[in-house]
């Protein structure tokens, strides 16, 4: 999984016992070892995440899923595809939770063809439904990586210049069956500034490595399902902004629900359900009105269908702030009775169980392992800094 060192050839390096990375525990299980690897990489990634980096916040991501014959393999339980579908549903939810103003689209590859099953859009539920429907797809033929990439590129190309363009490929197959030279496609992706990440379910494939390296993405092969989940969820965080990404001010609308004083809301239809077949538009009172053209929508964020204005609410933007201003990383220290309890969760430290404790550089408070994880994964606010007036003002002024 490590990056190749370009200076020497693979056969010139020392003999590498790759299997020794994974160690059995006392009972002969591998789970602990794998959990350890995941944990370590998480911390490593966390350490890299430092504020003030330019990120591509308005993401446009195409997920390209392999639906070829090879996805019926049973090395993931119950099958590769079912496992993928399940993880993907969770991923989509998390993606929109963390990137509310981003968009997603889904493409499947089977029978040497690529097929778009869900257009680039900002509604998580639609995508989840499309992914769920994959359970019933027949897994036939070979995938065509090139066709999948081309299809994604075709619609990513048309996006405005400030949008961050990404493709995430889930490859179960070790081969790809392409109509022409895939290197041309990779070159095109590179010039368009599309970042391509690949998750391999079987083994490392050169073309995938090449694709990821060229476009500035990552390429990883999974160990087992929890590792798969971890790799997939890495893509929830917005990537660093591509070089060619232009910044601009985007016009947005902030609709409000407030009714005019003393009057009842009129019964109106919303624009979001107006042409959907399975649940038609109903007459309702509440809703969000586009400040530009007054079309009504029942949920945010949404792009106004009649005037094209992006409609969001302030908390949606706030939801993304933590990517830009992450909580400061903690220092790992061996436990030497620095504090009797964890500052945040009040757990009392026991020297035998808590070998490591974590210290915040700003407020010098001591935290336990679980809180360290929770604070940096979910909370994004250091409880120590946020409750101490001196450090609060310090961290606040630095932002």
């Amino acid at each position, binding site marked *: 999984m490590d990056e190749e060192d370009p200076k020497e050839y693979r056969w010139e390096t020392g003999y590498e016992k790759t299997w020794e990375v994974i160690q059995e525990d006392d009972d002969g299980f591998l789970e602990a070892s794998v959990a350890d690897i995941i944990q370590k990489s998480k911390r490593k990634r966390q350490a890299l995440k430092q504020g003030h980096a330019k990120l591509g916040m308005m993401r446009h991501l195409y997920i390209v899923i392999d639906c070829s014959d090879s996805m019926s393999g049973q090395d993931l339980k119950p099958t590769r595809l079912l496992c993928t579908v399940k993880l993907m549903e969770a991923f989509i939810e998390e993606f929109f*939770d963390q990137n509310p103003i981003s968009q997603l689209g889904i493409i499947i590859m089977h029978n040497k063809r690529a097929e778009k099953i869900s257009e680039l859009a900002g509604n998580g539920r639609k995508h989840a439904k499309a992914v769920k429907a994959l359970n019933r797809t027949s897994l036939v033929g070979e995938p065509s990586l090139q066709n999948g990439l081309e299809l994604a590129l075709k619609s990513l190309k048309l996006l405005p210049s400030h949008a961050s363009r990404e493709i995430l490929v889930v490859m179960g197959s070790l081969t790809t069956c392409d109509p022409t030279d895939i290197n041309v496609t990779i070159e095109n992706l590179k010039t368009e500034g599309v970042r391509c990440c690949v998750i391999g379910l079987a083994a490392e494939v050169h073309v995938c490595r090449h694709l990821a390296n060229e476009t500035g993405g990552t390429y990883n092969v999974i160990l087992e399902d929890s590792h798969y989940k971890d790799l997939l969820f890495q893509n929830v965080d917005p990537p660093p902004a591509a070089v060619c990404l232009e910044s601009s001010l985007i016009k947005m609308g*902030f609709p*409000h629900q407030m009714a005019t004083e003393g009057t009842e809301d009129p019964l109106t239809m919303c624009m979001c359900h107006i042409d959907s077949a399975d649940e038609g538009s109903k007459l309702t009172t509440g809703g969000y009105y586009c400040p530009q053209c007054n079309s009504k929508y029942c949920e945010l964020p949404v792009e106004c269908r009649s005037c094209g204005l992006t409609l969001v609410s302030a908390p949606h*933007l706030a939801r993304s702030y933590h990517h830009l201003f992450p909580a400061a990383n903690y220092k790992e220290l061996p436990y030497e009775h620095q504090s009797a309890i964890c500052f945040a969760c009040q757990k009392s430290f026991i020297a035998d169980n808590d070998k490591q404790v974590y210290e915040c550089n700003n407020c010098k408070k001591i935290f336990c392992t679980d*809180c360290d994880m929770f604070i940096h994964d979910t909370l994004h606010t250091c409880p120590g800094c946020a409750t*101490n007036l001196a450090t609060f003002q310090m961290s606040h002024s630095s932002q």
Partner: protein
Amino acid sequence: MMMDLEGSTEKSADFTNTDETSLLVIIMDSNPAQRILRENPHVLTQCVDSVIAFANAHLMQKAQNKLAVMACHSKLSEFIYPGPGKQLDVRQIDGQYEVFTLVEKTIKQNLAKILTSETSTVITESLLAGAIAMALCYIHRINRIKAPGLKLNSRILVVTGSGDSASQYMNYMNVFFTAQKQNVVIDVCALDQHLSLLQQGCDITSGMYLRVPQMQGLLQYLLWVFLPEPPIRQKLVLPPPVKVDYRAACFCHRELIDIGYVCSVCLSIFCKFSPICTTCHTVFKIPSLGVKPKKKKLKI
């Protein structure tokens, strides 16, 4: 054949109690800089008494119910029940239930400790967002160590007389979204001013927001509005949720706007187009003719 597998269970079965445990974390603002406390310091005693009685009423609901109380003071926030260190050894002194006596004594003792250690008279804001962050960590731990299969409803009640300050906006939003994700309900009882930020938090986590009209009836307000756990609330008629104004305030003039411009790099909001972002110092390209190309129409 399958229709009556449940058998003819008791007619009253659906009305009886569920075996859900409820964890309540109360955050009490004890900052002496609050306006109501500066005008009349005795209000704090009344407030503490009401909160203790309310906390005990919560424990009285079910044997399994859990409680934690935090004080948010001018410079620090601390858990005052169950406090740090060993539990007090409490013997009954009157007819009060032993556990309730323990709660009352612990809270009063720990609070007194905080009050005496803090003597500065500088007016500072209460860092409620940080206190909520601590409470969330605490709830997260309780959730982790609870017996598998046990259902735990957690909620946080904030009792405060401070105003809310925009300087904590980011922290507030972080804790609200975390609470929402962890299914923790945030209730807010405002003693003095209207708190629009915390009200947003209530709305996001589907909690209750109440601004107490008068301090005299505080306990009664607490018992009426905040004692029912979220699952029972639907069975009771409680103050209806007000519509919360989620419009954004622009970073340049702090005014609520309907249409604004958002920086694609740092998501700062501006009410007018400006060539440079004041937050992240990014230089923007001038929009061509001021109209954004309609991407939807272009692609076929």
